[in-house]
Structure formats: structure tokens, C-alpha cells
């Protein structure tokens, strides 16, 4: 069987790979969107936090013998704590200034984190095997689907939905959104806004960490894994409309798939197709697909 003149195995395989990549784009841009939408910070260190999450999981499993499921919970927690340190220790001092300073500061933080891991582990890749439960593959008849990849896609969509639900449909989410509109007023109602802000940043960071843990078995864990991904994620965020939660999830998944398609038909362009789309979208709709015109 062939689809558009391409053997369907190759076609569906790339599509699936695209969907997995898209799941990571979605989760990472979601974390960025949460932090930006609620705190007005562009977290350049997001890629580095993703890398730290992957390393944390790898160290736990490889050196300490902790199993995958514990690592899946512990690593994002560690990254979340790191997020608290970054927000309390550094970013807090920049509130009220031009958001560009936040971008520059977090860029510095990402250099520090990357440098430390590069010193410690070199640039060669590490990886670990997937847990028993998720190893193997399922024959869907039209293609062989590795179980772990299916798990990544399902898990990331679940996380995205949960995040959307918390922010848009719960009381906590309402406080968060109100706090960004008028922090003083919300504080007058007895909500501790600074703690809320810190926890939001930590949650965004934890999302990046979780994406790192999920990614570790699929890709090589290296200190540089975040720095190259973060720019694609920035492009995703720009296309989706900065701060839009729906936008980041839909665009993330969609662009992963588009990238997969491109890899089938014209592999040379697969690395840049996201940026080309970004340029086109910006020319036609400067606020992004789901963004509000400011």
C-alpha cells in the first residue's frame, strides 16, 4: 500500500514520530505559555529545565536504581524546586521592568545549567531503556507502533488537558488569571499572590521537567538537548499566539506532524519548515493563530 507514492510504513512511521515530537513541542510551549500568560516572563531557561528533567530521570534510574514511575514523579518535582529557586532568587528582582530583561536573565541561567552539565557529563548522549510495561510494540495492522511512543503522546495530551482544566475551569485558575490582571486587588481578597506566582513558575518548570523525563528514552540525553529544541518551541509559541494555552497545544501537535510529513517528502527542509511556517503566519497574522491582537 502506498500513500502519495510513499510506502505506507514509512509514511505512518514518520507521522507517528512527528506526533511524538509534536507532543514534546506542545508540553514545552504549554509550560512557556503558562509562565508567560500569568507572569509575563519569557523563560529562555525552559529548554535547560527540560534537559535537567531528562538528566534527573537518567541519573535516578541509571545510578540509583529508582524505577521509571517514581522518576516520572520525582524528576519534575526536582525541576519544580529548581524553578522556585530561579524565581525567588533571581526573577523576583526584575518584576516591573521590561520583560526583555527576564528573557536575558533566563538566557544566562540556561548557559549556567548547560555549562554545569556539560562539565559533568560531556556532550555524548546517554539513554535508558523503557520500563517493562511500556516496552515492545503493538501491531496495528497498518503499522507497528512502539508502545512507549503511544504512551508519550497519550500522557502529554492528558497533561495538556489537565493544565487547561486547572487554569480555565478551577477556582485556583481563576485566582491565577485574576492575579495577572490586578495583583493588588486579588491580594486584598486574601490571596497570597507572590506565593501563587512562585508556584506557577514552579509548575511551568515542572512541565518542562516532565517533558524531559518522557523524552529521555526516545532521544539521547545530552546537555545540549534543550538548547536546540527551545528555539523550535519559541517558533511554535509565536505561531500559536503567545500566552494562549489552546494555541500552544494545537500548534505544537500540528507542527510536529507537519515536520513529520516534510521528513517524508523533502527531508532537507524538515529542520526549517517550522520557521518557514512561522514567517508566513507572521506576515498574514502578526498576533499568531490563536493570539489576540494587542
Amino acid at each position: 500500500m502506498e500513500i502519495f507514492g510513499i510506502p505506507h510504513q514509512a509514511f505512518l512511521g514518520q507521522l507517528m514520530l512527528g506526533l511524538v515530537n509534536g507532543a514534546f513541542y506542545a508540553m514545552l510551549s504549554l509550560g512557556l505559555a503558562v509562565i508567560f500568560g500569568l507572569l509575563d516572563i519569557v523563560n529562555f531557561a525552559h529548554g535547560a529545565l527540560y534537559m535537567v528533567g531528562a538528566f534527573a530521570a537518567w541519573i535516578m534510574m541509571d545510578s540509583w536504581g529508582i524505577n521509571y514511575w517514581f522518576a516520572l514523579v520525582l524528576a519534575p518535582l526536582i525541576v519544580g524546586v529548581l524553578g522556585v529557586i530561579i524565581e525567588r532568587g533571581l526573577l523576583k528582582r526584575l518584576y516591573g521592568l521590561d520583560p526583555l530583561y527576564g528573557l536575558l536573565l533566563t538566557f544566562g541561567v540556561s548557559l549556567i545549567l548547560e555549562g554545569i552539565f556539560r562539565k559533568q557529563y560531556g556532550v555524548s548522549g546517554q539513554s535508558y531503556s523503557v520500563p517493562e510495561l511500556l516496552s515492545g510494540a503493538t501491531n496495528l495492522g497498518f503499522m507497528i507502533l512502539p508502545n512507549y511512543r503511544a504512551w508519550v503522546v497519550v500522557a502529554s495530551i492528558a497533561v495538556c488537558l489537565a493544565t487547561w482544566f486547572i487554569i480555565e475551569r478551577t477556582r485556583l485558575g481563576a485566582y491565577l488569571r485574576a492575579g495577572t490582571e490586578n495583583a493588588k486587588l486579588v491580594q486584598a481578597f486574601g490571596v497570597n499572590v507572590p506565593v501563587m506566582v512562585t508556584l506557577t513558575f514552579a509548575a511551568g518548570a515542572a512541565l518542562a521537567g516532565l517533558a524531559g523525563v518522557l523524552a529521555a528514552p526516545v532521544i539521547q540525553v545530552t546537555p545540549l538537548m534543550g538548547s536546540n529544541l527551545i528555539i523550535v518551541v519559541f517558533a511554535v509559541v509565536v505561531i500559536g499566539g503567545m500566552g494562549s494555552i489552546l494555541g500552544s497545544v494545537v500548534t505544537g501537535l500540528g507542527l510536529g506532524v507537519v515536520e513529520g510529513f516534510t521528513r517524508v517528502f523533502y527531508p532537507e527542509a524538515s529542520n526549517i519548515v517550522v520557521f518557514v511556517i512561522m514567517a508566513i503566519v507572521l506576515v498574514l497574522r502578526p498576533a499568531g493563530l490563536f493570539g489576540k491582537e494587542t
Partner: protein
Amino acid sequence: MSLPTSPAAGQAALHPQPAATEPRAGLPRAVLITYLALLGLALVAPAIGLYPVFMMKLLCFALFACAFNLLLGFTGLLSFGHAAFFGFSAYVTGWLVKAHNWTPELGLLAGLVVAALLGLVFGFVAIRRQGIYFAMITLALSQMVFFLCLQAPFTGGEDGLQGVMRGKLFGVLSLVDDRVMYYVVLAIFVACFVGILRIVTSPFGQVLKMIRENEARAVSLGYNVDRYKLLAFVLSASLAGLAGSLKTLVMKFATLTDVHWTMSGEVILMSLLGGVGTFLGPVLGAGIVISLQNMLADKVGEWVTVIIGVIFVLCVLAFRKGIVGELLAWLDRRRTRA
């Protein structure tokens, strides 16, 4: 969304105040003396034992930082994609000189023109958004250029472009000698520095500064703000490209490092460290960063990235005006007190 956030921070920028009222008044004497002293130092640098190749590298990056600062410091646009102009022009010049035997002056010119065209495309897409969006868009576009350089046949991929010959300038002046090359680089740098000084103090430069300080007012006064921003972007990109081309001739190679986005981060650091919106700041910043990298590379190895990151964080947290900016602010305070 200009980077110097308060009017006070904006005024920390070097001496444009007298020029604003009397465009033809020239530079204040103290500034002129400083410039001439530095020029004198640069002229005798090889004679007093400073290694010419290091000095040339420093000047190339200083030019790069000045070009970047023209955009950030005087127009208020933070580009996170200037490595694209620097690196792509480095490749273009290297390739034309190496594979097509172009003369160095034509190679440099080609690098400048290519960067200008690339800047036109980037600028056209990016100036539709402001502030952090602008930064992220320029970053993403430059990553596109990075992948083009990684895959295009003329760049040598992962290996880069090696063994570029400097050749003879205008067919007579052999650039093989490092000292001759040094003075050529110095001449180009000084010409560009004076050019930037001239641009910023011109009526055009005043409009750019108005856009930085209050874009809405510039629009309401009837200025076509987008066209001014685009022109500033193209100018900045061209000079950044020239810096890259010059770097290729000096070092005799062009690699992916030149076009990687971390280079965009480095040039931001240079400007920030020296002083955004000052003339000498980027030069000093480039000097410090390049010297640090040269000195530390063999001593601390991988820690260089960490140290650069820490400097970055400290700059943003503690002295946002940069070294020259803080110095000028201090002089200013002392003058008003006296």
C-alpha cells in the same frame, strides 16, 4: 519597549544630548580625547607586543557588537538573531574568496550586501511585532539560517570552511602579513565606528531614538516608524555581516559557531556588559568577553560557559547600564552635584 527602561537609564547613553540641539556641534572635548587616545593605543598595539591576531579578532567582534548596539541601544529593538548576519556573511565571503578566487575587498563587499538583503527579509517579518516577540522571531529566523548553513553544499557542513586565503587588497597590498591585515581591519573598524557615530547623531538617528523612547509619539508626529525601524535593522545587519566577513579573512575560516544562536547571545552580552546605548560600551564589552574566552579556555575549559552565564545574570540583575553606562551615570551625578 526600549531596553533602557526609565528615562534616566536612557539618558545614561553617551553624549547625544548636546548633539540633539546642535547637530553640527561635534563631540564634546573629553569624548574626543578619549577616542583619540584609544585610536592611538590601537595604532601602536602591535608595536607594544599585543598579538595582532587576537587584536584583529577583538576588533571584528567589537564591530559586531557596535552594529548590534546600533539597533538595541539607539532604536530599542532587541534582535536575538544577529548571528545569522555575522555567520552567513562569514560563509559567503569565505566561499567566494576560497572557491571563486574573489579579491578580499570584493569578498567583504559581497558579505555586506548579502547581510543587508538578509536583514531586509528578517526585518520585514520581525518588525511587525515588538519587544520579546521581536526577539523570539529574530531568534527563530536565525535558526533557519543556521540549518541552511548546516545543509548547504558550499559551507562544508560540520567541518566549516577552512583555509581561506586573505589574498591581496586591491591587487597590491598583501594581507598575508598579520600586521598589514591588522591595520586594514583597524581602518575598517574606525570607518564603521565613525559611521555609526554619524548615523546616530544625524536627524535620522534622532528619529530612531524617538522611536526608542516613545514610539506612539513618533507615529503621531507622522513618521513612518516601520520604515525607520527597517532601515535601522538593515544597517545593523549589514555592519554585522561585514564584521563576519572580516572575521573570516582574519581567522581564515568560517564555522557553524559563527552562525549558531549562542553567538547572538554573546553579542547581546558584549553590549550589555559594556553599556547598551553607549558608543564605547560594545567595544569594551567585546574586549572583555573575547579576552575572557581566550584566557579561560585553556585554564577552566568547560566552565567558560558557566562563567559567561554568571556574568550575564549579574549584568541583568545588578548593573543594567553596563560598565560605560554606569561610569557615565557616575560622571553625570558628580557634575550635577558640583
